[in-house]
């Protein structure tokens, strides 16, 4: 008896493609996506993009810059990328680096101040030394800590001679002075070490393994961290999560709303509608308008809730919120229409949409912030609505950027929405005539 029940279950499952996809393909797809995100396949730790500004221009600061640029866990640069066919743009200054961080080009910038080379480090907290400055975008809570740690490590590995020199000075102070022979021997050793460092710089080799890293105040170098974006925000990640979670559920709602087309086809109402004065284009446009308005209402409710409960500053960002909400809602609605026009049944729609929406949400940043993903994954994420919508809302609520800066996000969302709508219209021809 039990065997018969089991056999029936497997027979039904074999013929239910939707259930098969949900049971076997979706878990594998998710396993693969998260495996890639967390570095199981190609990359290890995601590299932190860092802008480096050398105001000191000393030998020590130059070595620090080169060390940072070589550091594999950092994606450092001293100047913006040159456009094709154009000369290289000037190096970052403290001001332009700060602007770049505010605009989201990088989560952090490291400023090496004038005078750093004269006294770059101290063995004791409070010792005489010039502090490095990190300008930080606090929407990426990891970047500043990574940069600070890496700076300590690079100072040790790229300036061992300076460290040894400083050590001997401390020793001399504590021991009452070196004999001339001892001083000569130390100078010889330091000279040899400097020669090795020059050779390594010329060879462009990797830094030596880290001996350890210090915290911002208590390490070899002093580091000051300043948030240049979001320093006054009370709930730094709320806008990110409101957009991320909002878009994901919007897509589920849109596919369900688009599914009304399948209900109408199944009940015969679609035939009745199309036998009257309504064309398929008009019908799809009407359903698109409904889905768009529904999505707008959902996003508005989501952000109102965020404003009421998490103190999101919604009301001073209304124009940007409006533009992003309409663009996102339009794109998501067209996505729902396309899925509905592709599916043959509600069950099929449910399976397809669950697979696609969860996949897009995973790689698009709705479930896991994109700035923590490997570079390749970040680029793949740009294939999703989630990424563009989250980027746009982040610009509005996090970076306080004007509406005019939302051009790329709005263009992509509206453009993709129009393309998907046209595709949906094309696939909906199967319902038009026999």
């Amino acid at each position: 008896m039990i065997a018969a029940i089991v056999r029936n279950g497997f027979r039904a499952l074999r013929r239910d493609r939707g259930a098969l996809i949900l049971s076997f393909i979706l878990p594998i797809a998710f396993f693969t996506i998260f495996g890639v995100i967390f570095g199981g396949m190609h990359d290890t730790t995601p590299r932190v993009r860092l802008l480096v500004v050398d105001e000191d221009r000393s030998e020590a600061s130059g070595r620090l810059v080169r060390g940072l640029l070589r550091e594999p866990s950092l994606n450092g640069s001293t100047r913006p990328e040159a456009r094709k066919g154009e000369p290289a743009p000037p190096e970052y200054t403290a001001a332009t680096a700060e602007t770049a961080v505010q605009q989201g080009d990088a989560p952090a910038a490291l400023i090496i101040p004038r005078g750093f080379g004269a006294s770059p480090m101290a063995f004791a907290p409070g010792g005489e030394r010039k502090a490095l400055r990190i300008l930080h975008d606090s929407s990426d809570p990891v970047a500043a800590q990574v940069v600070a740690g890496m700076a300590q490590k690079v100072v040790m590995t790229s300036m061992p001679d300076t460290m040894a020199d400083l050590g001997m000075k401390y020793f001399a102070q504590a021991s009452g002075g070196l004999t001339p022979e001892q001083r000569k021997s130390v100078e010889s050793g330091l000279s040899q070490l400097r020669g090795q460092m020059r050779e390594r710089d010329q060879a462009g080799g990797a830094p030596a393994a880290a001996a350890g890293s210090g915290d911002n105040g208590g390490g070899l170098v002093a580091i000051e961290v300043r948030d240049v974006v979001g320093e006054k925000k009370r709930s730094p990640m709320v806008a990110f999560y409101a957009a991320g979670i909002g878009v994901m559920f919007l897509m589920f709602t849109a596919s369900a709303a688009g599914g009304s087309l399948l209900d109408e086809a199944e009940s015969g109402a679609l035939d009745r509608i199309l036998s009257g004065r309504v064309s398929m284009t008009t019908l799809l446009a009407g359903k698109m308008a409904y889905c768009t308005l529904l999505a707008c209402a959902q996003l508005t409710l989501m952000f109102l809730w965020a404003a009421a409960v998490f103190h999101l500053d919604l009301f001073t960002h209304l124009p940007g919120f409006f533009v992003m909400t309409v663009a996102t809602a339009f794109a998501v609605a067209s996505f729902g229409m396309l899925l509905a026009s592709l599916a043959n049944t509600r069950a099929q729609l449910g399976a397809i949409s669950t697979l696609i929406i969860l996949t897009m949400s995973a790689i698009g940043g709705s479930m896991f912030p994109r700035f923590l993903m490997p570079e390749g994954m970040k680029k793949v994420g740009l294939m999703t609505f989630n990424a563009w919508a989250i980027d746009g809302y982040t610009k509005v609520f996090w970076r306080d950027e004007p509406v005019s800066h939302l051009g790329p996000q709005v263009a992509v969302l509206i453009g993709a929405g129009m393309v998907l709508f046209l595709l949906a219209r094309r696939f909906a021809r199967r319902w038009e005539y026999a």
Partner: protein
Amino acid sequence: MVPLEIDSVVKRFGELTAVAGVSLEVRERACLGLLGPNGAGKSTLIRSIIGRVRPDSGSVRIFGQPANSAAARAEIGWVPQDLALYGLLTCRENLDAFGRYQGLRGKALRDAIHWCLDWAALADRAGATAKTLSGGLRRRLNMAAGLIHRPRIVLLDEPTVGVDPQSRNRIFEMVEALRNGGTTIIYTTHYMEEAERLCDSIAIIDHGRVIARGTKEELVTQSFGGRSDVAMRFVATVPGIAVWAASRGGTVQDGTAHFSVDRAAEIAPLLDGAAEGGYEVAEVTVRRPNLESVFLQLTGRELRQ
């Protein structure tokens, strides 16, 4: 202007020819019954009329306009066999939705909804959602939704499927009210008695062709002339009845022998023959052939097969 002209319509779906050169003309205020077994091509023909199927050849014209034109669509009301309604909307909201899809607005729409609710006797259930209605009421709402724009031609596709006798009578009254109001009706059904009661002419379709067309009397005369059907039921089922009936030009169905006779005088020799063969007759019925008989005669199948 002729309400409906179908001229040599052919429609193929791959290897299958669903409609194989049908020509029909329906005059104004007529009620044409479209009869045919499942798969005969009725639905494809109806979908050609409402512009949902594009014929491979031939033409369909509604008051002189091509079937898929906006002008033609405005003149046609289609009541599908499926309950093509929004289950979560009320009766009034359903009618409002389909009225707007037909381009009605304002007072014209309100008047149309009022008329439909009255016509379908649904005024007291106007606020009930469609999914909460009984099968019969949903059928009536389904019909009302197809007529919201007051078309001059109405296509009713099996409007009484699955309804109780009381609701069926109500639907008959609705159709008769339409017919009396001057609407041209095309009515497909599996029930002969419906066609006999409601339709003034009948077209029988089989294998994608119209194999007979006329009034009930004309069809019976075409098939049987002046002959009548004699049904002879026996006290017991005895082996050899089928052979005996066949020897006298008859057939046996469900143990009853059927003979076709021209005159009443032909009945007595049949009874004598039965007695001689030892077949004890329990009942003899004489009746004029009906549409069922015609259908059986023409297609070799029962209508509900």
